[in-house]
Each structure stands twice: as C-alpha cells, then as structure tokens.
C-alpha cells in the first residue's frame, strides 16, 4: 500500500507544484522537500525489516485483460536506491528552491524535478517490467524538460533533444527486450523472472532480449559510444546536473543491470559485453575529462567514467565486484552530487565555471571550500572518506577478476590516477590558484545552497569512518539482491599491507606527479586529443540525424508521388500478391462443374453482365458506358431475385435507376472521352486488373466451397419473431438488431447529401 500511495502523492505534489509556487514564495523548495523527506524516513525505517530478508510486494490491476498490473517490489536494492533518490532529492529541492530564484518559471522547474523524482522512484521500486518501462520513459521525458529548461537557448534545446533521442531510442529497445524477455515466462512480473533465471538463458530469445535490454541500459547510463549526451546535458541548470546526471537517472541503467543480474547475468555474453563496454567507458570518460576546462563538463566526464566502472563491476560479477559496485555506487552518488551542487554555487557566486578563470576562492568561502575539498578527497579515494573504501574494493575486484584482470587493472589504475589528478587540480586551482579579477566579491553560499552538500559530505565521512556499522546495513541486502549467491563483505578501513594498498599509494603518488607536471603534460594530451578525437561524437550524432532527415525526405518524395493510380496500383498488387500466396498455400479447391444447377436464364444473365462489363471498359462512348452500367445493375437485380434476396432486389432496382439518372445528369456536362494513356500504360493496367480479378475469382470459389463455423445469423433467425416481432428478418436486422449501424449509415448518407448540396448550391452563391 505505502509504496504505491507514496508515489501517487508525489506525482500529485509534482502536478500542483507549479501553481503553488506563487503562494509559497521562496519557501517553496523547503516545503516541496517535505514529502520526499517523509519517504526517505519511511524507507530508512524499512531497513531493519529488509535486513531480515523480507521483500515487500504490492500489486494493483492496470489492464487485467492483457495481464498488466502495477507491481511494486521493495527489497534491499530498491531501498538503497530509494534512499539515494529521495534523500538526495530532498537536498536538491531545497537547493533548487534557492538556486532558481533569479530565473523565470521556477515553479514549473520544481514541478519537473518532482515529476522526475516520481519517475525515478517508480523505476527503483517497480516489480513488473512494464511498470518499470513506464517510469523509465517518464524519466526520459522529464529529463528532456529539465535539460531544455533554458529553452530560449538553442544549445539547451539541442542537448535536450539529443538526450531525448538517445534515451528514447534506448527506451524503445528496452521495451522490445522486455517483451522478448517475458515470452518464455509468459509474465512480466519480477518475482516470476527472479525465481528462475535459467528459463530465459536456455531459450533462443536470450541473445536478442539481452542485446535490446543492454542497449536500453547503456544509453541511459551514458556508456560508450552513447556517452556524449551526458556532457551535452550540462547545459541544464546545476540542480538538474547534480540530481539527474550524477546521482539518479544515469544510474537507472546500472540499476536495471543490477536488478536483472540474477535473471540475465552470469553468462559469457553478459560478462563480456558488460566488461568491455564498462572498461572502455571508464577509461574514455576519465581520459576526456583531463583536457576539459568547464567545471561541470569535467564532472560530467568523470561521471561517465564512474558509470563505466559500475557496469564493469556488475559484468565481472564476482563477490568482490558486486560489493564494490554497491559501495562505489553509494560513494559516487554522495560525492558527485556534492560536487555538482558546489559547481553551481561557484558559478552563482563568481559568474563562471571555467576553471581557467577561477582561483583563490578559499579566502572568500572557506566553509564551502572545505565541503568541496572533502568531496574531492572522496573522489580521489583518500582515507578516511567513503571513497577510499570504494576504490579499495574496485582494486580488489580487479585483482581477482576472472578474465583479463591485468588489462582491467591497468585501465582502472590509469582512471584512478586521472581522478586523483583532477581532485588535486580542482581543489588547488580553484581555491588557492592565481586569483582573477571578479566582477563582485564572491561570498559564502547561503544555507539552502550549502546544506545538501554539507550533509552528503558528512554522510560520506561518517560512513567511511564506521563502515561496518553504518554502510553495512545499507548495502548488504542490496548485494544479495543483485547476486543471491554472494554475501556482503564486512567493510573496514584498514586491510593490512597488501597489493591493493600498494596500488592505492601508487595511484596517489602518480596522481600527484601528473599534477606536478601538468603544465607540460596537458598541452601534449590536448594535441593528442585534437589529432585523434577531433570529430566529437555529438557532431557525428547530429550529422547522422541530418542524414536521416535527408533520407526520409527522399523516401517521402519517392513514395508520396501524388499520382492516385500508382498508390492504387501499389495497394492492389501488394494485397493481391499476398492473398495469392495464401491461396497457393491453402488446400486446393475441388471444383465440381455441375450443370444441373445452372438454369439457362441465369447463365444468360451472367453472360450479359460479363459482356456489359467488358464493353463498359473498352467503350469510347460515355453513353454506352452508362447503358452497360444499367445492364449490370439490373442483371444483378435478377440474380438477387433468383437467390432469395427480395428486399435487395427491390432496393437495387430503385437505386440503379436513380444512379443512372444521376450519372446522366453529370455526364451531360462533361467533355467526351479523350486518350490520356499510352498503350503501354493500358497493357500494364490490364495486367494489374487481371491479377486482381483472377484473385477475386479464386477467392469466391474458395469461399463458396469452404465449410466455415456456424453462421451467426442463426441467432437472428431464431430471435427475429420471438424477440423482435418481425417476420422479415433482413428488415429486423436493419432496424432492431443492428439499428445502431443503420443509424450510422443514414447519418453518412445525410452528410453525403449535405455535401452535395453544399458543393452545388453554396459555391454558386459565392460565385
């Protein structure tokens, strides 16, 4: 009950947030934060229950006919993610409430944030693939709205569109993957899937489903080669970067992989693809961050790197790796959220986030500086921050990785060296480096802006100091949820002297050395990047979009040519060829030519109709064509009479008479036939006509000789007199059983009549 209700109320808060902003004035952020905070406390209170290994499941019917329901599934993994989403979300709302004050439409901004929070919280607690997909798409949409918040700037719109297209593409792939995944289970419920992962693994749909789901996860979590949307999304306001692009939305892909690990994981394909993509992303992200100068873009690239690390760890799948993944996830969310918020603060106070124009800020904002430096320490993986634990576990996992551990270890080492270097560089350059001329004196950020970063750093510090007591309960059940076979490792700061510690020390030293010689190294790296990575992925992406548009235009011009007869021809040929194939594969028709049921008069009528039809087609005279039309109509009337269609015959004879009068009245005004088509075109059309005509001929034979289910008209025959008091069944069907259809029909003919009236009378008046 609680999870669903909580989400519903959160959605309501999101819906009314833009309208209440006026009345709440500047307190809006604090007040909107109350509900997520309540949720945070609720999930915190669930921790002891979850520790017992309990899983809370709620289910609400959605479309029972299709077997779809909204199911919520709360286990250790969900609780950990919920705490992150709601806890950081609370801080972000407070932060955003203050941060966005100078901008227009801040109420709407808070509403979008809350909407996103609902969606993200929905993903982490959903217990049904379709439920998850719905929330998944909602995060894409709300992130589009948030990234494009400064919608008057073209680059903001472009980045928002880019993020939407990529995550939307991934979302479609994901839906396909989910559908395939559900086929062997005949269920979308997570509980069914988690109960037996071997069902899908031994099914031929495993590989297609896996590929599609991985595309969904990789696009969302900005994995190489889809990583470029994340740095692009830095055009969003800082609260968005801090929330969506560090702590939550980009983790959705990681969450999905973690969630489905018991179902899909453990195979060679799984571990290879995750490891390769993860390790590439990890290194590429870190490498590209080195030469960036925009503070937020640096952070974005390190986020890409961190996401790669997470995917790599899940792919590795050993006990250490899963432990490392969960701890690192927590670590990263805490320090990266802090750093993004601080980046926003620095931009707000100094007017820039280009690190070349930042320096000497320590004396203006010492408190903020300490918070940011502690977060950077965590990023560098220095004790006693939680980041140290995270990095140690990653090294342990890499050392013990089953395959290619040397390769992974080397790249992991290099990545960490870069992170250490960046931490040093950001801390020292920004807070002590050469001071530029600021437009106005920077000040300490106010309470709302600093509270969240402060508490998150504090959490990182406390969790790092007391890992087993504090971090253990948070992570242990999440670990078993990802991988039921593995236990949580008891976390501690001091591991003794071993290779991992040696690596840590080496990392710090190398990072320092890089920092020391940065003025020599950076230009070299810059030159290297410019030579080999000149074409940015963003540009490749947009040129692909352009190429696609060009292709679409060509295709439209080719298919939408505007000639009615070619549309019709396509339609006729395709349809009749398809049905021809069906007829070909069906049982052969057994045709008994029985001349006894062919009265001579009817044969004459049919022959007359055929002759009239053919002469109507070939005739060069419009009047002959009309006369032939009449012959056909009256011939059909005779057939109706012969085969018990009395009402039909009467109607037909009236309608046919009127139709000929009408056609005569119109033909009178039209010019004589002219030769429009070449002989070749005539031959071609005749061929198409023959194809369609013969197909219908076979169809009639097939229909006439097949035995079908009992006709539904038996009921009408039964009920016509007993229920509807009519002896003329045809009429009873028209005015009683199917009266609504008839009502529709007379409405149609009335509208046609009004149309004719309008075409003739009203145009005359205007002329």
């Amino acid at each position, binding site marked *: 009950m609680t999870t669903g209700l909580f989400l519903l109320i959160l959605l309501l808060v999101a819906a009314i947030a833009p309208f209440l902003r006026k009345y709440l004035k500047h307190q809006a952020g604090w007040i909107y934060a109350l509900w997520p905070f309540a949720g945070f406390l609720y999930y915190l209170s669930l921790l002891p229950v979850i520790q017992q290994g309990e899983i809370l499941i709620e289910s609400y019917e959605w479309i029972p006919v299709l077997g779809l329901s909204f199911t919520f599934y709360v286990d250790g993994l969900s609780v950990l993610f919920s705490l992150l989403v709601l806890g950081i979300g609370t801080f972000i709302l407070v932060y955003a409430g203050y941060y966005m004050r100078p901008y227009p439409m801040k109420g709407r901004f808070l509403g979008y944030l809350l909407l996103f929070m609902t969606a993200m919280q929905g993903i982490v607690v959903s217990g049904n693939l379709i439920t998850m997909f719905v929330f998944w798409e909602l995060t894409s949409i709300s992130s589009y709205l948030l990234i494009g918040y400064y919608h008057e700037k073209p680059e903001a719109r472009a980045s928002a569109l880019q993020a939407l297209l990529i995550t939307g593409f991934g979302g479609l792939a994901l839906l396909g993957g989910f559908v395939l995944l559900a086929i062997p289970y005949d269920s979308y419920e997570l509980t069914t899937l988690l109960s037996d992962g071997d069902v899908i693994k031994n099914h031929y749909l495993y590989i297609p489903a896996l590929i599609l789901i991985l595309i969904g996860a990789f696009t969302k979590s900005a994995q190489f080669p889809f990583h470029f949307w994340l740095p692009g999304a830095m055009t969003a306001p800082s609260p968005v970067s801090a929330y969506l692009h560090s702590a939550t939305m980009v983790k959705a892909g990681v969450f999905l992989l973690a969630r489905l690990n018991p179902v899909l994981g453990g195979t060679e394909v799984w571990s290879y693809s995750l490891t390769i993509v993860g390790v590439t992303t990890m290194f590429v992200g870190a490498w590209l961050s080195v030469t960036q100068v925009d503070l937020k873009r640096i952070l974005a690239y390190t986020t890409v790197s961190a996401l790669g690390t997470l995917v790599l760890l899940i792919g590795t799948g050993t006990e250490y790796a899963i432990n490392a993944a969960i701890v690192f996830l927590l670590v990263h969310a805490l320090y990266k959220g802090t750093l993004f918020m601080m980046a926003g603060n620095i931009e707000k106070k100094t007017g820039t986030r280009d690190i070349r124009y930042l320096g000497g800020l320590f004396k203006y904002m010492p408190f903020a500086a300490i918070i940011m430096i502690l977060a950077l320490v965590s990023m560098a993986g220095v004790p006693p921050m939680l980041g140290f634990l995270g990095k140690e576990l990653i090294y342990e996992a890499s050392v013990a990785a089953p395959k290619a551990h040397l390769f992974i270890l080397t790249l992991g080492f290099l990545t960490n060296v870069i992170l250490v270097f960046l931490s040093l560089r950001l801390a020292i350059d920004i807070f002590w480096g050469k001071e530029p001329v600021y437009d106005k004196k920077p000040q300490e950020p106010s309470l709302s802006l600093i509270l969240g970063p402060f508490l998150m750093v504090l959490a990182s510090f406390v969790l790092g100091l007391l890992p087993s007591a504090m971090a253990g309960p948070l992570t242990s059940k999440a670990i078993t949820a990802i991988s039921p076979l593995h236990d949580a490792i008891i976390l501690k700061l001091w591991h003794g002297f071993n290779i991992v510690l040696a690596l840590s020390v080496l990392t710090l030293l190398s990072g320092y050395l890089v920092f020391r010689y940065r003025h020599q190294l950076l230009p070299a790296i810059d030159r290297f990047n410019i030579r080999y990575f000149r074409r940015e992925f963003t540009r490749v992406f947009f040129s692909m979009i352009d190429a696609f548009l060009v292709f679409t235009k060509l295709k439209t011009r080719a298919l939408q040519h505007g000639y009615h007869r070619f549309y019709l021809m396509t339609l006729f040929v395709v349809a009749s060829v398809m049905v021809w194939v069906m007829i070909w594969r069906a049982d052969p028709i057994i045709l008994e030519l029985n001349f006894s049921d062919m009265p001579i008069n009817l044969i004459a009528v049919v022959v007359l109709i055929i002759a009239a039809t053919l002469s109507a087609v070939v005739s060069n005279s419009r009047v002959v064509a009309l006369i032939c039309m009449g012959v056909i109509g009256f011939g059909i009337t005779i057939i109706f009479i012969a085969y018990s269609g009395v*009402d039909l015959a*009467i109607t037909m004879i009236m309608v046919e008479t009127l139709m000929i009068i009408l056609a005569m009245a119109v033909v009178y005004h039209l010019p004589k036939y002219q030769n429009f088509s070449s002989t070749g075109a005539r031959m071609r059309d005749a061929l198409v006509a023959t194809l369609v005509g013969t197909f219908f001929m076979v169809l009639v034979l097939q229909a006439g000789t097949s035995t079908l289910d009992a006709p539904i008209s038996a009921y009408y025959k039964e009920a016509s007199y007993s229920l509807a008091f*009519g002896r003329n069944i045809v009429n*009873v069907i028209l005015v009683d059983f199917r009266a609504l259809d008839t*009502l529709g029909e007379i409405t149609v*003919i*009335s509208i*046609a009549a009004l149309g004719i009236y309008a075409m003739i009378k009203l145009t005359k008046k205007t002329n």
Partner: protein
Amino acid sequence: MESIILQIAARHLRPLLIVLSLVVLYRGHNEPGGGFIGGLMFGAAYILYAMAFGVAKTQESTFFNPINLTALGLLIAVVSGLPALLLGDSFMTGAWYTFFKQTAFELKLGTPLIFDVGVYFAVAGMLMLVMFSIMEE
C-alpha cells in the same frame, strides 16, 4: 423538356407512389419492404414530378424542404433509441407495447417501427436533396 404524357403521368403517379411507399414502409417488418425501400419510393415520386415539371415547380408544390426532411428522419431515428434508456436498457434496444391485447385487433408497436420511419424520412430527404441539387444545374 416538356412532355404532356410525362406531366400527366407524374401528376397522378406522385400521390399514388407516396401512398405505395407508406404501405411498403408499414409492411416492411413482416413482408418485403421497409424504411429504405419506402424512402427510395417516396423520393422517386418527387423526382419523377421534378423531371416532368422542373425542380422549382416541384419545390413550390411541396410544403417541406428536403434538408428538413433529412434532419427530421435522423431526429426520429435517434429519438426512437431513447425509450430504451429510460427502461434501463442500452441505447437502441427495442421496446414494444401491445395494444388491444387478446382481441382481434391485437397490435404490437415498438421503437424499431419508429426507427424505420426515421430511416424512411432520412433516405427520402437525402435522395431529394441530391437529385434536386444536381438536376437544377
């Protein structure tokens, strides 16, 4: 086109055809006929007249207008579906009432018959509207 024969025929045939169309409408529920056929006959009566005397003269001689006739037909058809709603059934369910129960004149009347009348007028009006419009050109 002035044809004495056609004019005389049309003048006498029109009331006859109208009466015939009513008969066809009435007996449609049990015998061949019904609203469609009746409506077509009713329309045909006027078209015949219009062919003999011209559209303008035909419209002078009638007290109704084809558009109104169509609208009336649609209205009757829709209204005939409403009693079912009052009785708690879904729209257009037939509702019947028997007059003169258990006498020689027992007569069952129901909403489907009213609906058929609606069809009759709608078809007749539509036909006249179309034909008059085109014939006037």
